[in-house]
């Protein structure tokens, strides 16, 4: 009987209507107005790569050991190095990183013995050309220019 009344008075449908109705509360709105509002990105986020430099001397931390390039499954890192005749040490000359092929798996970052290569919180990697997605050493050290939006 109860079931019958429930069927006649469309209780199940009204119940559903009530769910959607109470979700109208403006405080429940979940939309993030990107790019007006920036998402908060977790500390460990694996985004744009960065080649760290020493904070005081501005010298690169990279020791050109090539481990990152070996670790990368996509083989998109190319480390160029030259032996310095005075110190008998390998020194970094060029470093290219093809962000268009990168899957941000973090293996290169894990492989780096001196924490020179790091994936940062920056996530806006779009560029107008394919070449623009290939980052050179300078770009990696300075980081991409922060994107300006008009809205």
């Amino acid at each position, binding site marked *: 009987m109860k079931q019958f009344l429930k069927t006649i008075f469309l209780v199940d*449908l009204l119940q*559903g*209507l009530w*769910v*959607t*109705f109470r*979700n*109208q509360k*403006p405080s*429940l*709105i*979940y*939309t993030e*107005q990107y790019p007006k509002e920036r998402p908060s990105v977790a500390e460990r986020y694996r985004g744009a790569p960065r080649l760290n430099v020493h904070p005081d001397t501005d010298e690169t931390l990279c020791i050109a050991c090539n481990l990152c390039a070996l670790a990368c499954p996509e083989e998109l890192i190319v480390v160029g190095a030259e032996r310095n005749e005075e110190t008998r040490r390998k020194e970094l000359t060029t470093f290219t990183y093809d962000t268009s092929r990168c899957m941000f798996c973090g293996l290169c970052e894990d492989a780096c013995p001196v924490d020179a290569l790091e994936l940062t919180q920056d996530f806006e990697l779009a560029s107008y050309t394919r070449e623009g997605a290939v980052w050179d050493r300078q770009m990696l050290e300075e980081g991409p220019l922060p994107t300006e939006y008009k*809205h």
Partner: protein
Amino acid sequence: MEEILNSPYVFPAIATALIIAVFPLVAGYIVLAERKVLADFQVRLGPMRVGPYGFLQPLADAVKLLLKEDIIPAAADTWIFWGAPVLSTFTALTAFAVMPFSDRFYVADVNIGILFILAMSSIGILGLILGGWSSNSKYSLLGALRSAAQMVSYEVPLGFAIVTALMVAQTLSMQGIVQAQYDKGIWIAFSNYGLMLIPTALFIIAGVAETNRAPFDLPEAESEIVAGFHTEYSGFRFALYFLAEYASIFVLCGVAVTVFFGGWLRPFANVGFLEVPLNVIFPILLFLLIGGGCGVGTMRVSQAYEKGIMAVLTLAMLLVAALFAIPAVNVLIIGFFWFLFKVLILIYMFIWFRGTFPRFRYDQLMQLGWRYLIPISMGGLVVNGVVLLLTS
């Protein structure tokens, strides 16, 4: 001059021109409202980018649709393909002719008003069928078949529900129906000891189906048959279908309001002491509230042009509120206000249904129509008729 003004065609002509000119814009804003309300149900924001809070979105949509390439599939039946959306739009807009917007504002008050609307909406189906057929696409064809079956079967309970109401009102003229409700002192939906609620509910359900709205939106079920009968349409022709759809929603809600919910009458139209609170204070408060909302919006938006638009809106709302305070103007516009208010509430309910319910399946739709709605609507007719006879 005098002669022209006195001719019986002047006012209808003006009203017609006004409706044709304004309705596309109104439809655009109904679409915006639908998107906003749906977004609200779905914890989203809806359009926010064009204009303040997406206020100019309808304009952007219109421009986009008008500028789009008008693609006609190679295998399509060109002439029918061209004509079908026009037919739909034409019939949907024609139905406005007998819509009683208020006691003063209507194009014509013919003594078969409601029949005229039903006839027009039936012809409108033809537009969908032809459109689906002429596109020469399987999805379109399926959509057209579905819409044909659906509309034909749901017109029956719709008709029965209206007939029931007409028995109570005892007239077919739209103005007459409203007048009858005024004389009775009760909306038809609640008359007959509440028995009229059955046809009212049926009318709304069948109306949702008749206008192809969710949960009965099978002809354009996007997850099944892509876009149904208008799969192959683009640009302006697509816009016409859209316009027709929203026009028929508006017409249907208008009919529901007129026939069941007292048309342009205010609630409790015969209770004298409610005159001032409902006819003056309520609209003023409503528009002040909207104006206030716009005012807060003005503070919140950042860009200068957005601020400008919002400020103009605020002022407009305040102005409308002020209009209601002037007794002479109030008399003119209050009927219109109530009519629109009720129609918008119904449209809100349509959107609400869309936001909540899953879609019926084709066979279930037919079952619901033939097994439940039609018998119930016939039963409602008989019961109400008997009660009417006994009480009169």
